[in-house]
């Protein structure tokens, strides 16, 4: 969700949604080939328009950035656009935008993706550029100094100068988890960002940016045979490298509710963030959890909107879901949360909101969803999931992530069936087991008077 440039943050906040229902039988084609250097290539042909979308995802996200280097995975993402010895800074955008396209990148917990979209006439130069920056980069210190400043402005605009400061995405995991990989500030402490050296950039590149640590998906007006041949031509000679093994990310169990209050000198209306720890990613319960997250938060028909905004009148806005705001509820591969972000009226107390919130969740645990409610959310998730695969760039992104995290692009077509099989009993059992006080963390963020010009801790730890 930390983009190289500002794009879809709003879309994220409004709830990028995933999951589906199998009734429609709309499937996207996907053919896979693994190069001898380990690069996995997925192709999904769609000849409805003469364009293509490309997504190359590397199995490195902010979860694995080293201690003392918070924010580094994202800072590194920016360095991928700073040129190479043969294609100096500026070339990349010049060729892609000048070819009628655009590009971007973003860093998530467990991967970093680089995306390009262009008329199909630009396919060869785009593949050449992506291969070029996988060989090596221009490790010039002035590029790091420049992008460090840019990233610090990104943090200011999205965190330090923004009401709420993404506390539901940064502070909440910080309190809900106990171990550094899952709990640290992924956007980066300014002391850590300032301390990053060009040697760190080189080491990170060497460790993680290897063809055998990546999945590239291409969707659009192409044929699999054509793409496989071109990828072999441009990427085939890049040598595989040893990638560090994935460390153990397991959290010690949570045994008690965790509650805290934060003061916000920029906000004028109070807000709550509530996070429940989720079951392991590769489990049937994770599929149920994805559905429950949407049942609670997806749109005006959702359980929490109806209960908190309409019936009890204790909230202005309710947003959330599993993996909120880091993508859809399947785009992670480690400890994660089902999050509710609630903005509530200034004349109420947090407990007024929580009482109504608990009543809604307890109801779900006691009775489960009605058959109609379950059918509705299945249809909505199917519809939303389809939209995530409508245009080539989004489809490439989804296919790349599924292949990286599940080993097969077909997961994007299977998730609808998996969700369609979720029963009311499973939802009820999930709510009873996971949506309980001892499994949650709550932050109440309240407006505070202006600090009067005191240092607001830009250089301090968050």
């Amino acid at each position, binding site marked *: 969700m930390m983009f190289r440039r500002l794009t879809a943050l709003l879309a994220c906040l409004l709830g990028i949604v995933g999951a589906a229902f199998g009734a429609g039988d709309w499937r996207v084609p996907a053919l896979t080939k693994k190069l001898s250097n380990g690069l996995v290539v997925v192709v999904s042909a769609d000849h*409805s328009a003469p364009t293509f979308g490309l997504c190359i995802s590397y199995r490195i996200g902010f979860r694995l950035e080293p201690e003392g280097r918070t924010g580094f995975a994202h800072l590194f993402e920016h360095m991928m656009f700073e040129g190479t010895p043969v294609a100096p800074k500026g070339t990349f955008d010049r060729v892609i935008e000048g070819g009628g396209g655009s590009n971007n990148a973003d860093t998530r917990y467990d991967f970093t993706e680089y995306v390009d979209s262009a008329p199909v006439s630009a396919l*060869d130069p785009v593949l050449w*550029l992506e291969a070029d920056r996988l060989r090596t980069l221009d490790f010039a210190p002035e590029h790091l100094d420049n992008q460090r400043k840019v990233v610090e402005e990104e943090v200011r605009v999205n965190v330090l100068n923004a009401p709420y400061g993404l506390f539901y995405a940064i502070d909440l995991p910080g309190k809900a988890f106990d171990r550094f990989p899952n709990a640290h500030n992924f956007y980066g402490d300014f002391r850590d960002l300032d301390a990053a050296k060009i040697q760190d950039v080189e080491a990170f590149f060497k460790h993680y940016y290897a063809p055998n640590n990546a999945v590239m998906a291409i969707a659009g007006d192409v044929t699999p045979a054509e793409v496989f041949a071109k990828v072999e031509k441009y990427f085939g000679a890049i040598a595989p490298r040893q990638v560090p093994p994935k460390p153990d990310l397991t959290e010690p169990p949570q045994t008690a509710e965790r509650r805290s209050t934060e003061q916000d000198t920029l906000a004028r209306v109070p807000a709550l963030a509530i996070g429940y720890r989720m079951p392991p990613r590769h489990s049937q319960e994770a599929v149920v959890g994805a559905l429950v997250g949407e049942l609670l938060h997806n*749109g005006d028909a959702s359980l929490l909107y109806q209960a908190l905004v309409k019936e009890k009148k204790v909230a202005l806005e309710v947003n959330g879901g599993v993996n909120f705001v880091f993508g859809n509820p399947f785009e992670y591969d480690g400890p994660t949360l089902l999050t509710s972000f609630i903005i509530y009226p200034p004349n109420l107390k947090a407990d007024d909101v929580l009482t109504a919130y608990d009543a809604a969740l307890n109801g779900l645990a006691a009775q489960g969803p009605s058959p109609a409610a379950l059918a509705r959310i299945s*249809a909505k998730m199917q519809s939303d999931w389809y939209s995530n695969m*409508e245009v080539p760039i989004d489809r490439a992104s989804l296919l790349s992530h599924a292949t990286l995290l599940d080993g097969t692009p077909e997961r994007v077509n299977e998730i609808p069936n998996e969700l369609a099989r979720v029963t009311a009993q499973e939802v009820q059992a999930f709510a009873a087991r996971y949506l309980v006080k001892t499994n949650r963390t709550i932050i109440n963020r309240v407006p505070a008077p202006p600090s009067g010009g005191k240092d607001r801790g830009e250089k301090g730890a968050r």
Partner: protein
Amino acid sequence: MTRRFMAILFLLFLAVSPAVGTEKETPLPKGLPPYGELKPFPAPQTTSQKLANGLTLWLVPRRGFPKVSYALAVRGGLAADPQDRPGLAELLTATINQGTATRTARQIAEELQAAGGDLSANAGIESIVITTSVLASNAETGLAVLADIVRNATFPDDEVDLAKINAADHLQEQESDPSFLAERALARVLFAQHPYGVTSLTQDAIAKTTAQELRREYARRFRPDQAILVVVGDFDAMKMVASAESLLGNWAVPSTPPVPAVEKPSLVPPHAVFFVDRPDSVQTTIALGSLGPTEGSADYAATQVANTLFGGMFGSRLTLNIREDKGYTYSPGSFLTPRRTVGSFQIWAAVRNEVTGATINEIAYELNRMATTSPSEEELLHAQRYLVGNQAIDLQAQDSVGRSLARLWVLGLPPEELGRESERIGKVTIRDVDKAAAQYFPAARQAIVAVGVEKVIRDQLAPFQLEVRAAP
């Protein structure tokens, strides 16, 4: 009356190799392969017709992707709000889905969710646009709910009361967001008392608006002869026309006059600094702006190209300067916002406090450079290709096609414009860009809004010796 047409978006690859740099440009890498042969880009194929009651219907059937997107627009947005109820259109859109003669708010939400959709109702400057996107198998349900909302909304008293309370708190929340503050201030600076100056509600308007007023404004704006329905996606055109006829064909035209057209503003915004004091800000949110061309005007395409190479894409002069060279900001940009009678040109950047003045200096330099010197051939070509290619990519999404077509209608333009825009962009010359830039880009023409700590803004901008006052 049915008219079919098929426009072609020309992709303007005037040369097949990217290697068209001038002496100013670094040569491209030796091994970089050239662009391939260009394929023409088919513009969305639109069927246009009018029902007997005057409702305009634009249909874009596209097989394959199994969803259908609806966009229903009516004339009369924020600029049509009563003078003592600025922003009323936002309350109207917040409550239009809160009940009809036969459906409660909850039933509306649940029926749409079951069809795979959400309802989005947005108050624009000159229109209100309601959209929903549903599974193709439930296309009929989507249209039935949409038609019910635009014809039979009841604005129940209790729902309006709740919406007003929430709107008051929501406005308070919005006022903590520097972009909201900058946008509101810039509109007021550019348009003063003219209706285009309204971009949001005020606490006073929220307090005074009644359910009865909402019903009256709804009746005034939601009428078939001042509305369009755009449908894009996987549907049968004949069946869709029949559905539209049956659900909307007997929507009666009132005898009262429609919302009058907005008059063209005559003022010239001042070249001065307007600040919004926001204590504890660690950045200054800068927004410069001036009046610009309308979408129908002869110099619009040239201004679009000028805007793109100035600040409308990543490889633009503004981004390369204040982000990629100086590191002052994360996401700078410039854009054109056309309205029916006049447009605006805006430049935005959020920068750390200590480089507020330096950023204004660089923006002024780049603006005046545009106004006084010509771009290179490669810059022109880069901007043209970027605009045409990315518009074509954007129009692959159903929702984008629906919104784009509804926008054209609101601006009084025909659907063929989707193809013509690209043709016109392709014909823009360096001379055209020079002329547009000389007219709209001079720094001395721009009003400057700055949201942040007042003292920082005053100190940082003192060297420019501009008048500094609190934003209206």
